[in-house]
């Protein structure tokens, strides 16, 4: 560049500079790692737990601003992202909000917007007298953390096997596809129940169960995409250069199948959230007393089948619906945008 150029291109704004792969990954990790540590290992770190989530709050807000900027052309994606990020923000900031202890019984069957024992309950209390607002927000933390982790693990496993089956073909393909077929032919519920019963009921085992249930379907999608792509010239070029098959799969194939995978991942996040809520409702998932939407529904369905107290059912039901609606709208918007390009 010559020094005489008087009007250099305007320097990209901070937001534009952040909308690149590396800063985005850093931001995502900044939001996600504290959440995981807080929910999965909160007891192990003790007092530090109160501080762990602090960096996640600005990261979440920043990510939301970036998402708004990037997806501005699609109203649907914006609405979806707003719903999802609302719950994400609730999840990361739950410990710092002025909420009551979600497990402390205060005044049973207090209606929403009413006062009892000098405490104003926005959303009332449940049958044990625990604050519904607080339980709802704390519940979203567990649902989001376990839901997203489970989807993530399922994706890593499914994509790895899909690439192996699609790219290597032959025996790899036969064996992997056969195992996937068997797993897919189990009724999903039986598979969940079997695994959770066998391993015991905990968040980590939910991750394993979801992986077993979703990975075969993901593997099929990735396998199809890999089959399509592996005959492209750039793959032949890489083979001629003598690159290692694993390197080719990860560096040449994976980035080129990411489009459909990202859309599918958004949809699957929704399914997994439903699955986790449903499992807890059926009494198989996360254990009481910590709040969880499925658990709230289950408890309310057994104790509050009266119209006056139906808020106990409606609140968690609407919460989970709005989160899933968010995921689905985001998937829709992303698909729309990818078709337009």
């Amino acid at each position, binding site marked *: 560049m010559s020094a005489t150029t008087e009007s250099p291109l305007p320097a990209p704004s901070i937001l534009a500079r952040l909308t690149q792969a590396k800063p985005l990954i850093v931001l995502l990790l900044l939001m996600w790692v504290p959440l995981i540590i807080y929910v999965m290992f909160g007891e192990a770190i003790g007092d530090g737990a109160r501080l762990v989530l602090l960096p996640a709050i600005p990261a979440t807000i920043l990510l939301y601003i970036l998402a708004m900027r990037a997806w501005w052309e699609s109203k649907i994606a914006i609405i979806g992202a707003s719903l999802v990020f609302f719950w994400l923000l609730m999840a990361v900031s739950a410990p710092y909000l002025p909420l009551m202890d979600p497990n402390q019984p205060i005044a049973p069957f207090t209606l929403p917007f009413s006062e009892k024992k000098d405490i104003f309950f926005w959303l009332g209390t449940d049958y044990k007298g625990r604050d519904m607002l607080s339980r709802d927000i704390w519940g979203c933390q567990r649902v989001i953390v376990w839901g997203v982790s489970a989807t993530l693990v399922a994706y890593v496993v499914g994509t790895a096997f899909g690439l192996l089956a699609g790219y290597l073909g032959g025996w790899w393909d036969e064996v992997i596809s056969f195992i996937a077929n068997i797993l897919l032919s189990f009724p999903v519920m039986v598979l969940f129940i079997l695994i959770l019963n066998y391993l015991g009921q905990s968040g980590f085992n939910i991750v394993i169960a979801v992986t077993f249930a979703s990975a075969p379907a993901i593997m099929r999608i990735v396998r199809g995409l890999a089959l399509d792509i592996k005959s492209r010239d750039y793959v032949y070029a890489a083979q001629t250069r003598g690159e290692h098959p694993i390197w080719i799969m990860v560096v040449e194939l994976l980035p080129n199948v990411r489009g459909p995978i990202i859309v599918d991942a958004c949809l699957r996040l929704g399914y997994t959230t439903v699955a986790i809520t449903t499992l807890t409702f*059926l009494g198989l998932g996360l254990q009481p007393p910590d709040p969880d939407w499925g658990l709230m529904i289950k408890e309310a369905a057994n104790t509050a089948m009266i119209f006056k107290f139906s808020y106990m059912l409606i609140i968690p039901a609407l919460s989970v619906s709005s989160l899933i609606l968010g995921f689905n709208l985001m998937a829709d918007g992303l698909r729309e945008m990818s078709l337009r390009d």
Partner: protein
Amino acid sequence: MLKLILRRLGQMVLIMAVVSFVLFLVFDSDKFKKQIAVNELGGFGVQTLTEQEYDDWLTSKGLNVPFYVRYVEWVGNVLHGDFGFSFEKNTEVGPLLAERLVATGILGFWVFALMIPIALITGVVAGMKEGSVQDRAVSFVSVFTTSIPEIATAIILTVIFALGLGWLPTKSAMTQGFDWTQLVLPVMTLVLYDFGYVARMTRASMAEVMTSQYIRTAILKGIPYHRVIMKHALRNALIAPFTVIVLQLNWLLSGVVVVEVFFQYNGFGKMLLDAALFGDIYVIQAGTLAAVFVAVFSQIISDVGYTLLNPRIRFS
């Protein structure tokens, strides 16, 4: 064609064999045996048993035989139409399975009877004119209804129609014989959840047909619009939804668990859940076999139907 069907059926038998073997293997663990014991005798009852008494109990249930022996015996029995004995319900599995399948079948029949016309009509209306008001309205409604999980739909409907208005009962246990009012809420829940997906598939298929050359030709020839839609477009547009609808059979069988449990409807899904929680191995086996059968069979129907409906595939 015949070869394809035979190959599929062969695969089905193989998958059934592997799946049931895996189930026997899993349920052979000490943990599951203990679980059955706890469920049957009570946790306290099991603790007081001595080693010898526990072994006797296992023998009386036929559980101390190695699982592969039980497996071979079970396969032989199944081939004779004997599905074994339920530990929990204390009945033969065969009649139990039949009864529950009929119950879920009734539920499924009404779901399909309502869902198919609604989904097809809304999908066709939306796909006729891409980007029109009706298109966007249908797309929005279908995303919305499919996004609300079954459990939430069930809750909202129950709160409105059963608790609020008092028109319908909250539970569908059918303790006093068959009662159609108890069927309304579960059917509505399933229809609301499922119709959006089929409607979107129909819309996509219809929209694709409407952009094709022969439809443009038909319109330009001056054929009335409604005739173009009814005679020319629909035939091709309904092929893809047909396969989707048949595949919903499979979803219905395992997707109803939540609805059946929430409304306490004694169907196939609830049977599977109860059996799995109890450790009732023979019921789980029979239920899984039925589910695998339905899954593979609906796949075959949809493939065969697709080939028959779509001349382009038939002649190639």
